[in-house]
């Protein structure tokens, strides 16, 4: 069966510091991968999606970036965090109709 991992689970970072969140998927090959941010009361915002290694599409302009160095690895990064980057970050993969989410990383920028 497929499993999706995210780490860390919780992160507190000062403004201006760098960020690296990692997501890995097990039990499937060549999945489509997604990064979402969920802010309180604002639903899920799609940030990036990837259909293969090195193929990244950005949905919204921001100071975040994504990379897919391996088939089942998806990384979300920032060089300098802003206060507005706080939120719950979710990685997801898709097969067929639905998308399947990881446990998430709660990021607080102070």
């Amino acid at each position, binding site marked *: 069966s497929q499993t999706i991992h995210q780490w860390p689970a919780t992160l507190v970072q000062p403004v201006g510091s760098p960020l690296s969140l990692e997501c890995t998927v097990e039990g499937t090959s060549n999945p*489509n991968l997604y990064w979402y941010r969920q802010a309180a*009361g*604002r*639903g*899920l915002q*799609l940030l990036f*999606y990837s259909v293969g290694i090195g193929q990244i599409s950005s949905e919204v302009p921001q100071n975040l970036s994504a990379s897919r160095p391996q088939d089942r690895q998806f990384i979300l990064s920032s060089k300098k965090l802003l206060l507005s980057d706080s939120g*719950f970050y*979710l990685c*997801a993969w*898709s097969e067929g*109709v*639905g*998308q*399947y*989410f*990881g*446990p*998430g990383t*709660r990021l607080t920028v102070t």
Partner: protein
Amino acid sequence: QKEVEQDPGPLSVPEGAIVSLNCTYSNSAFQYFMWYRQYSRKGPELLMYTYSSGNKEDGRFTAQVDKSSKYISLFIRDSQPSDSATYLCAMRERGNTDKLIFGTGTRLQVFP
């Protein structure tokens, strides 16, 4: 106008009640409709999905799509305290893209 509208709630019901959760949408090209359940501080979990119009039942859950009205519903029968969560609807067009458009979620509380 947002593509998908969902009442944020909260919706508070007694145990055993029938719950109705709803979303409206504006894009007539949407063909796949999904419902996710999200417990506090957890990732969303796919409950069920339907294609085009009609009903789909899975245990205590029934998903209903009315494309003519651009309205989808999730019914929960015999609701339990463990059903207390936020429920998000999501939908997508048929075709190459599998990008989902989500509602903002409805918070449901089932009290004993």
